[in-house]
């Protein structure tokens, strides 16, 4: 009897998985139902084309919310897009949404912004949902206790046509972060510290559930930042159990359950957290108090160190692959082993992206930028994640703080996170960036990216190099 009870205890992932199984038959992949489908201009056009060629229709247009974010300019938005290929992609998105009757926040819509910033603003994702998007940072929405993951374009087409996806069940990993985070560290630093600890393939095959007091203490926006980077640790998705913060965040938003259904939805949401004693396939533990503000030094998000650390030497890695990766990264990054992180000069600062483009991020950064001046030779851009973030920041006077400090205050978009819209580094330029990936060429061919939190980025802008913000 005891064994049976034990076996029935489920993780949150298993609960969501079980409740979304449409077909589970031997000899084929389980078919999972999809509640919400998010879209942007880069990974959808070929899916619409496929649908059109096969004569299929979008099964549930109401499950889809689309935006334009990757290719959109962050300045002179009133002018036509100069890049003809990007322009065509934007026009194709608009046409596809029009023909199929899909809700689209196009470039000029007051709701426009980065998909993973816009979707929570409108309460489009709720706890317990299965959410997909042709974008790996879909993991963001795990902050709400939704199973949210990135898919390829063929799968985008599959979901449009069938509202389902053949899926393989993932293993579960619990990442426990207990203790109090220093006021100088943030969700971004937790995410980078986890990736540093388990590596970019550490989570492959897993869905991570983040637990522990430091996670409960995070705001909803902090949880979004954390889950956003689950993919950087290789995980299919990241999850945080819903709680009072989640419910309070959702209440009253456009697509949140209406008053009529609120209590029913709430009762369901409260049933979702992992059962006491549910078994995870793997567990990783971190102490929040140990997490210093992080800075990436290499070309993979696992190559990170605390701001008080130094650039590692290849010899310091016993693993041959990691040693070689370090050597390659240092050559690309133009760094010498044992350089103090705080001695690394920077040319560019980018605050924004689906990782750190929300209002709390700009508040923290503005606090740091207040009364400072961007260092000589440094360009600093603040790119809100959405028009709503931009408007809120302007109401609070944050734009003035940035502008007075010599920053550029831009229109929303993915911007320099992946540099598709013309905002990019030139060869050899070095950035302090609040985005999620420091891959070679990510922010422009030959550009060198250091991933940091918004506070760290703003401090670096004023100093012209990285700064241990705990000592300011």
């Amino acid at each position, binding site marked *: 009897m005891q064994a049976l009870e034990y076996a029935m205890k489920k993780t949150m992932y298993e609960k969501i998985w079980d409740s979304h199984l449409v077909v589970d038959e031997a000899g084929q992949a389980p078919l999972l139902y999809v509640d919400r489908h998010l879209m942007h201009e880069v990974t959808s056009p070929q899916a619409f084309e496929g649908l059109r060629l096969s004569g299929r229709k979008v099964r549930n247009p109401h499950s889809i919310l689309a935006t334009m974010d*990757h290719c959109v300019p962050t300045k002179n938005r009133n002018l036509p897009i100069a890049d003809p290929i990007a322009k*065509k992609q934007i026009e194709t998105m608009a046409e596809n949404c029009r023909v199929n009757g899909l809700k689209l926040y196009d470039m000029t819509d007051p709701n426009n912004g980065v998909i993973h910033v816009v979707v929570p603003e409108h309460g489009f994702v709720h706890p317990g949902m299965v959410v997909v998007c042709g974008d790996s940072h879909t993991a963001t929405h795990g902050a709400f206790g939704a199973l949210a993951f990135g898919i*390829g374009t063929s799968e985008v087409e599959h979901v449009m*046509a*069938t509202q389902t996806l053949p899926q393989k069940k993932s293993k579960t990993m619990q990442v426990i972060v207990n203790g109090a985070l220093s006021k100088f560290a943030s969700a971004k630093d937790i995410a980078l510290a986890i990736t540093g600890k388990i590596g970019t393939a550490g989570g492959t095959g897993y869905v991570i559930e983040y637990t522990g007091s430091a996670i409960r203490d995070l705001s909803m926006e902090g949880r979004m930042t954390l889950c956003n980077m689950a993919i950087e640790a290789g995980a299919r998705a990241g999850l945080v159990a819903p709680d009072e913060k989640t419910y309070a965040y959702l209440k009253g938003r456009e697509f949140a359950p209406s008053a009529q259904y609120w209590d029913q939805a709430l009762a369901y949401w409260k049933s979702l957290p992992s059962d006491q004693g549910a078994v995870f396939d793997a567990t990783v533990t971190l102490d929040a108090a140990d997490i210093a503000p992080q800075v990436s030094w290499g070309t993979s998000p696992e190559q990170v160190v605390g701001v008080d650390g130094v650039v590692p030497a290849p010899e310091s890695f016993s693993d041959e692959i990691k040693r070689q990766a370090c050597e390659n990264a240092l050559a690309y990054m133009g760094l010498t082993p044992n350089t103090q992180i705080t001695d690394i000069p920077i040319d560019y600062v980018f605050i924004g992206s689906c990782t750190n483009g929300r209002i709390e991020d700009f508040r923290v950064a503005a606090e740091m930028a207040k009364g400072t001046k961007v260092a000589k030779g440094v360009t600093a851009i603040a790119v809100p994640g959405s028009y709503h973030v931009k408007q809120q920041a302007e109401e609070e006077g944050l734009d003035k703080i940035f502008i007075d400090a010599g920053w550029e205050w831009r229109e929303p978009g993915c911007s320099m996170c992946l540099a598709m819209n013309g905002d990019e580094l030139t060869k050899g330029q070095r950035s302090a960036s609040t985005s999620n990936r420091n891959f070679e060429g990510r922010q422009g061919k030959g550009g060198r990216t250091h991933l940091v939190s918004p506070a760290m980025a703003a401090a670096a802008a004023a100093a012209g190099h990285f700064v241990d913000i705990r000592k300011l």
Partner: protein
Amino acid sequence: MEPYKKHESIAALMNRSNVDTDQIIPKQFLKKVERSGFGQHLFHDWRFNDDGSDNPEFELNKPAFKGAKILVAGDNFGCGSSREHAPWAIADYGFNTIISTSYADIFYNNCFKNGILAIKVDKSQLDKLMAEIADNEGVRFVVDLENQQVTTPGGNGFTFEIDPFRKGNLLSGLDDIGLTLKHVDKIEQYEQQHKKNYPWLWA
């Protein structure tokens, strides 16, 4: 999708780990609205010099690897973004098989949607294959999906595991969506129940 057939082909060596999707197909090529024509941009930033000429240092530019259909690469291949442009570029360039110890999740799924067989081997097996290619650039391997077997002239052949569903789809070249739509009645049933259980999602 073309059915995957048994073939003998040159195996190209890419002895790097964590090859990410930004390298496979850099973002400046993601703006197209078609699926075709990405092969010319595969590994662009590594493959070409600033003036557009071939970078002779880049492994796939070695004459011995021209025409390779098999790519043997280091751990965690395809990490990073969900862009299906990555497997589109790989397939369009001419590869239909990748051999590595591990792949990023989304990339792995995307491969099979595009007729690319992504084979997983253990580290010691990968080391043997890499050594065989390094010693004999231009060596041809035989890949037999039906029998889940790879053979090499150097005697480093092996059998591999693969999900039967993925295998079947590759061999038949069948469209996943068509397969799923065979269950359309179950999808409808599920939706009816879903509407009862979670009415706020449909309000």
